[in-house]
């Protein structure tokens, strides 16, 4: 009796040391697999470069991104200014390099909002079921019935333009798919023996959800968040472009394109390079997400 119970605990406790160890090994295996495939390897490397650039931006940027130099306005790309200068003589390469910090901030905060919210809504809906589940899923459906850009536009219009509000708005629109996923996962675990076992031991619902269900949902939720990052990047850039996201003079890529728009017909570099950066990062997230899904879900192969 005791022996069988212990072995059950081995499987059951997702937070136990042996599990954490194997999770780490799994992570390494996943990264190895990602790098083995050219396209997901490309995505992984581009995002690593993005992280690194954001970290050391002041060291590698050739100029101060905000210093106005009216003697050097609208210079085409050259040896001194690789990506040219904008209408105020600021170095575009330096601005793009500093812009990685803004992109990274957006990605991080959106993940921090979306992950927990989606996880809590999804797991509780799946675990409790009934009326609560119906209401929660209806709410999710309503949010899902909007294209993300239009809903975030509406939220930003309500909250006021600016980077912080844009991030909140994107977070508000990005949680429903996560909640759906977490709920579906929870439904498959709900009837499992280890859940019944901890319920019989007298664990509260809160404890079961936090300790036994959420850790099981975490891997697929992380993959889903990675996959949605491309959309987040594009939505943030779109908001910046429409003047509702990050405000000039912040070197946000979408906002840079918006200000460059007036001069673009004669000065293509004002819009071409920041847009190229957006394309590269969102492409990288798409490739990485696809690779992650393939690595974690053998059915797709």
């Amino acid at each position: 009796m005791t022996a069988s119970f212990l072995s059950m605990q081995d499987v059951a406790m997702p937070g136990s040391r042996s599990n954490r160890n194997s999770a780490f090994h799994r992570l390494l295996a996943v990264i190895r697999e990602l790098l083995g495939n050219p396209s997901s390897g490309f995505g992984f490397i581009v995002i690593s470069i993005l992280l690194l650039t954001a970290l050391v931006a002041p060291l590698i940027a050739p100029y101060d991104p905000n210093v106005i130099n009216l003697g050097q306005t609208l210079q085409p790309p050259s040896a001194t200014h690789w990506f040219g200068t904008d209408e105020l003589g600021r170095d575009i390469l330096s601005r793009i390099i500093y812009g990685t910090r803004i992109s990274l901030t957006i990605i991080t905060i959106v993940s921090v909002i979306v992950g927990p919210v989606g996880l809590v809504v999804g797991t509780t809906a799946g675990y409790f079921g009934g009326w609560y589940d119906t209401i929660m899923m209806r709410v999710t459906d309503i949010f899902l019935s909007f294209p993300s850009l239009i809903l975030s536009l509406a939220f930003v219009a309500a909250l006021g333009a600016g980077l912080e509000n844009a991030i909140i708005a994107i977070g508000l629109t990005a949680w429903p798919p996560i909640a759906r996923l977490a709920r579906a996962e929870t439904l498959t675990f709900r009837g499992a023996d280890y859940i019944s076992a901890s319920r019989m031991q007298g664990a509260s619902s809160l404890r079961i959800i936090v300790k036994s269900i959420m850790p099981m949902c975490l891997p697929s939720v992380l993959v889903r968040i990675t996959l949605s990052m491309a959309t987040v990047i594009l939505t943030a850039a779109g908001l910046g472009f429409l003047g509702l996201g990050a405000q000039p003079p912040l070197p946000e890529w979408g906002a840079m394109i918006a200000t460059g728009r007036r001069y673009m017909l004669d000065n293509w570099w004002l819009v071409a390079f920041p847009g190229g950066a957006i394309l590269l990062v969102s492409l990288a997230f798409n490739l990485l997400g696809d690779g992650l899904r393939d690595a974690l879900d053998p059915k797709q192969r």
Partner: protein
Amino acid sequence: MGNERLTAFTRQAGTILATLVGLLILTFCIGRLMPVDPVRAIVGEEADQATYEMVAERIGANLPLYQQFIRYMNDLLHGDFGISIRTGQPVINDILHVMPATIELATFAILFGAGFGIPLGILAAVRRNQPVDHVIRFLTLIGHSMPIFWTGMIGLIVFYAVLDLVGGGGRISDYYIGLVPETTGFLLIDTVVAGDWEVFWDAVNHLLLPASILGYSSMAYITRMTRSFMLDQLNQEYITTARVKGLSKGRTIWHHAFANIRVQLVTIVALAYGSLLEGAVLIETVFSWPGFGQYITNNMLIGDMNAVMTCVLLVGIIFIALNLLSDALYKIFDPRTR
């Protein structure tokens, strides 16, 4: 049996109703969150306290929130979507006025997207993991990943400023504006009705670039879905049976596999058509296209509350309707769901 169907119908109707009420709550919240004082917007900055309170009384701004919400629902039920603060016109009239431009743009975009997307998706599935498949995958990935407003600008720089192949911003060149009487609001139809072919070709010239860039993003989605639907079919045994029986490859692909995914494709194209609204918001800004997308953005920028609420509501309803439509199409065309 009849009873069962009735229950299913009631449940479906209940779901739709609940979703609609939820949508109204959402738009109402967005409207009330907006940093705009609806009374000030009507009376203006100089109005004295008495006028302010009179108007507040009349539009119900002093009532508790739930009563305001009931009022809002009541107005909507009577077809009253409010007056736009910016134009002074009923919002619904404004929207009806800008809608044709967007429908024209989106229709051409979806023709482009489906016209290229479906054949490419089939090709990719048939030549799975061959070079063609990789090229198509790359093309669709770019379509997924590109910021559409940026592609629009690059398109303008290359095809308008450098090559001078297409018209620039707007629906027609400035010197043609007002020449053709507006009967339907759809320029391509209006010019044909008026028999003015010069303006017709000018309008086509202006439509080509924004429509194909918008269409490219939906092509990416349609190609991807077509490929995966097609692969599902091609991996099934009846295809092998057909091939073993001696049917040609072309015949198995078109008469068997493709015939089975037609319904799925129709629903995907319908959903993609709706999603074009999102791209339209950005593309219309880039191309100064006087449509629904630009209308939304302009009103959000100046905080025109009634207009924003109605636009958001409308987009939500369009999407709910499209989802219902695609469910209905499934039921009508797919005998297995009957």
